[in-house]
């Protein structure tokens, strides 16, 4: 049960904050932060209890249960989500009032925002704790839904609405693909429970198709090429959203999935090689874009794409440092995002080219963000150093080409981080008002954590090992320490610093050329493809809509013609086609046939009838002829009824004609009889089909019908007239229903033709 405690506390945060917010707007953030810290405390306590699992019944029909796990991976990611979450919520207390004021929205909306952030945090904790494929997907889509609401929080802003929709569709679509993969695996192994799936997969590796589906879901979430383009657009969201979702939470979910499911991927070298390639491409693309982007949130977004590329490479290589990498990256990136938000709030600017020289006015922020930047670019004495160490370690085992790629990547990271920090704080002095303390404090806390990790790397070893063990299913031997020797990792790190510094120093020389090249290539990117696809679908949709049936006639024909064709086809291809019986016509039938002929003639004549009155008379002529048919067919009850109905109906029709304005009738009449060829064809198909289908049915008459039994029982029903007995007694329920139909029609008539006035 203690496994649930952090989850329950995390789930309780949002409602508690909401309630607190109802009391006083400012209280929501503190309540939320308190709740998440409590959850963090519970997590730490639980950590001391060692690994465990909890299974609760859920949906036995599908053999599903709520399965939670407590292992290194879930602990590490939960701690990350809860810790950063608490800081971001506090930060938003200082950030949102200003933001809402600028957007012209009521200050109360701040509570809604914080509630959503906390809900997202809960979803994230849920995601990393569950131990079931279906539940993984459920939690994954929960994060998608809440991120949609968060990214589109500024709902007046068309750009942020579009960004929200883009991220919803892209991450939603990829997660549905993930679900298809999960379903395939679940069906294949006969369970959705993750430990069982992994156990069974050890003997019977998962199919490549399913793994690719799972990987697509993860790539979409982690904003990797080719699904990366939603992330830069999502920067339209308020900064706390970016700093949480796009550093520690949402994008981490994708890589987390791959780590959680790593045992499935381990034997599939082909899929892993593909992931490796995607990781390197994302790394390169993200880093290069980060080098030229101007809005500083975009720089950070591209950097996130690149950094998760690193993490992807680590997972694909099966390195035990993969969870650690994500966990160290998160506070660095979150701190930088928070810095960016603070700078925007203080200066009102969003682009690197518009700010600079803020180190004098915002000294604490500058210092703290310098630590975060150092962490991101893996300088020693920060925790970030170790994220690159494990990275280089993994690459070094694969060979020089990989090492070179890693070196370039790390060099680029340093270059764009320097560019960002220098762009914000370096350069000629500029004075701005001081930032609110609450805006700076979370950055400082994060910076402190990064420093602590850098100075005392021993603290990181235990969680990193536990997480690696959970990911790879074998005990980990990960070592984190500073070694002052010439091992490959150290050489690569030094090489990367040199490269980064060189790139930064010479930035004016290559920036314009690089931006031109990148601009050129973006024309062929996946974003362009996505837009083109959407555009084509839109055009197809509009074209179909224009072509679609609008006329009542075509709507009727669209029912009758397919039915007719289907009926003809059924008669044409099945053995029914040989079984038509012509039947015999004796002398006794002559009257019947004549009456039928009369009815048919009258029906045909209606088509030629010019005037409405003549039309109505011909229709009633059909009816009376049919009544005659019924009389000759020894069905006097039906005959009597149909005579009376026909009479009433003719009079009603006449009444209707009297109601209609004569000029309109005249006008309609002139226009009416211009049949289109396809109307004739439709009627022909429908009629032919009706003819053949009824002929077929009449050829298969069952001689022994229930009707005979009713005749026997009529006496018991005290009714000499069998038809009356059937109507009122045997099938009386039909008659009750039929009479209710009449009353319902009557209600319709009375409401359509109301006594007094209209409406």
């Amino acid at each position: 049960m203690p496994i649930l405690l952090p989850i329950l506390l995390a789930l309780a945060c949002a409602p508690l904050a909401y309630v607190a917010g109802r009391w006083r707007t400012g209280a929501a953030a503190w309540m939320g932060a308190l709740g998440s810290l409590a959850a963090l405390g519970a997590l730490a306590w639980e950590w001391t209890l060692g690994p465990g699992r909890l299974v609760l019944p859920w949906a036995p029909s599908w053999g599903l249960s709520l399965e939670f796990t407590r292992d290194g991976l879930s602990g590490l990611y939960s701690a990350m989500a809860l810790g950063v979450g608490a800081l971001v919520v506090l930060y938003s207390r200082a950030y949102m009032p200003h933001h809402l004021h600028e957007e012209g929205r009521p200050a109360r909306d701040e509570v809604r925002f914080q509630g959503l952030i906390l809900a997202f945090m809960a979803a994230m904790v849920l995601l990393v704790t569950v131990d079931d494929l279906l539940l993984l997907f459920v939690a994954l889509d929960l994060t998608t839904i809440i991120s949609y609401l968060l990214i589109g929080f500024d709902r007046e802003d068309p750009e942020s609405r579009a960004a929200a929709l883009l991220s919803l569709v892209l991450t939603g679509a990829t997660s549905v693909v993930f679900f298809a993969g999960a379903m395939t695996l679940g069906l294949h192994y006969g369970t959705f429970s993750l430990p069982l799936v992994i156990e069974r997969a050890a003997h019977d590796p998962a199919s490549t198709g399913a793994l690719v589906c799972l990987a697509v879901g993860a790539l979409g979430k982690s904003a990797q090429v080719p699904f990366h383009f939603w992330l830069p657009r999502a920067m339209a969201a308020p900064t706390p959203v970016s700093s949480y979702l796009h550093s520690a939470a949402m994008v981490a979910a994708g890589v987390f999935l791959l780590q959680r499911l790593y045992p499935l991927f381990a034997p599939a070298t082909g899929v892993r090689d593909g992931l490796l390639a995607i990781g390197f491409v994302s790394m390169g693309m993200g880093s290069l874009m980060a080098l030229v982007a101007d809005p500083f949130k975009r720089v950070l977004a591209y950097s996130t794409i690149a950094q998760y590329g690193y993490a992807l490479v680590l997972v694909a290589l099966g390195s035990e440092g993969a969870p650690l990498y994500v966990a160290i990256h998160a506070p660095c990136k979150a701190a930088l995002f928070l810095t960016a938000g603070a700078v925007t709030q203080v200066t009102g600017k969003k682009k690197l080219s518009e700010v600079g020289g803020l180190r004098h006015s915002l000294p604490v922020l500058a210092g703290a963000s310098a630590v975060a930047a150092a962490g991101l670019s893996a300088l020693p004495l920060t925790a970030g150093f170790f994220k690159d160490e494990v990275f280089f370690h993994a690459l070094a085992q694969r060979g020089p080409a990989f090492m070179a790629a890693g070196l370039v990547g790390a060099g680029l990271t340093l270059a764009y981080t320097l560019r960002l920090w220098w762009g914000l704080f370096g350069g000629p002095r500029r004075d701005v008002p001081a930032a609110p303390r609450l805006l700076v404090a979370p950055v400082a806390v994060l910076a402190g954590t990064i420093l602590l990790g850098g100075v005392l790397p021993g603290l990181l070893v235990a969680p990193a090992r536990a997480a690696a063990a959970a990911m790879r299913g074998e005990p980990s031997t990960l070592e984190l320490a500073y070694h002052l020797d010439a091992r490959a990792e150290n050489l690569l790190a030094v090489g990367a610093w040199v490269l980064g510094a060189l790139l930064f120093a010479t930035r004016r020389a290559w920036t314009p050329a690089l931006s031109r090249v990148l601009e050129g290539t973006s024309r062929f990117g996946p974003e362009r493809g996505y837009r083109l696809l959407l555009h084509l679908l839109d055009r197809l949709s509009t074209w179909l809509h224009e072509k679609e049936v609008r006329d009542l006639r075509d709507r009727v024909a669209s029912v009758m013609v397919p039915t007719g064709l289907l009926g003809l086809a059924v008669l044409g291809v099945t053995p029914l086609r040989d079984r038509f019986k012509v039947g015999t016509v004796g002398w006794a039938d002559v009257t019947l046939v004549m009456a039928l002929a009369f009815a048919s003639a009258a029906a045909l004549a209606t088509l030629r009838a010019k005037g409405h009155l003549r039309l109505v008379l011909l229709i009633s002529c059909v009816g009376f002829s049919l009544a005659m048919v019924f009389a000759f067919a020894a069905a006097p009850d039906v005959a009597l009824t149909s005579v009376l109905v026909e009479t009433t109906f003719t009079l009603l029709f006449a009444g209707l004609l009297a109601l209609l304005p004569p000029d309109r009738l005249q006008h309609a009449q002139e226009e009416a009889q211009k049949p289109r060829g396809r109307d004739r064809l439709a009627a022909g198909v429908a009629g032919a089909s009706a003819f053949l289908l009824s002929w077929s049915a009449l050829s298969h008459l069952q001689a022994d019908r229930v009707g005979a039994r009713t005749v026997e029982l009529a006496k018991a029903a005290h009714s000499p007239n069998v038809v009356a007995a059937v109507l009122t007694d045997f099938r009386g329920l039909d008659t009750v229903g039929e009479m209710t139909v009449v009353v319902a029609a009557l209600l319709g008539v009375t409401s359509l033709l109301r006594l007094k006035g209209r409406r």
Partner: protein
Amino acid sequence: MISFVPPLSRLLLWPSLIIALSLWMKGGASVGGGFPAGALAGLAVLLQYVTAGRDQARRFVAVRYAAPLAGVGLLLVVGTAFLPVVAGYAPMSLFPRPDQPEIGVGGLHLHTALIFEGGLMLIVFGLVVTVIDRFALRTGGEEEESGP
């Protein structure tokens, strides 16, 4: 022509109604039943509308309250169908039951089917008369409806 049609139609009304009633009563034994009875009675009233006009036709209570009459008819029908369930019978059990003796006065058999058919008659009468009445009311130009 105009002079003798209205009196004639008024004269015809009562015989038609009596025929309708007999159709109803004899429904269990021979051709007839509630539906033709109701339609016939409706037709008789329709004749009044055609010849004497709406105001004259609405002298009869049954015509003015035709629509509620249909409701009463439906109550009768549903009641006959479902009241037996109170006594533990299946719905649509009519009395006398198959094993019970018939109760009859002369050629007329008393049977709950009669009530059932009576309900039918009222419903059909109500529909026919109401539709006619509403059509008659609307005849003679009215303003157009407009709006989107």
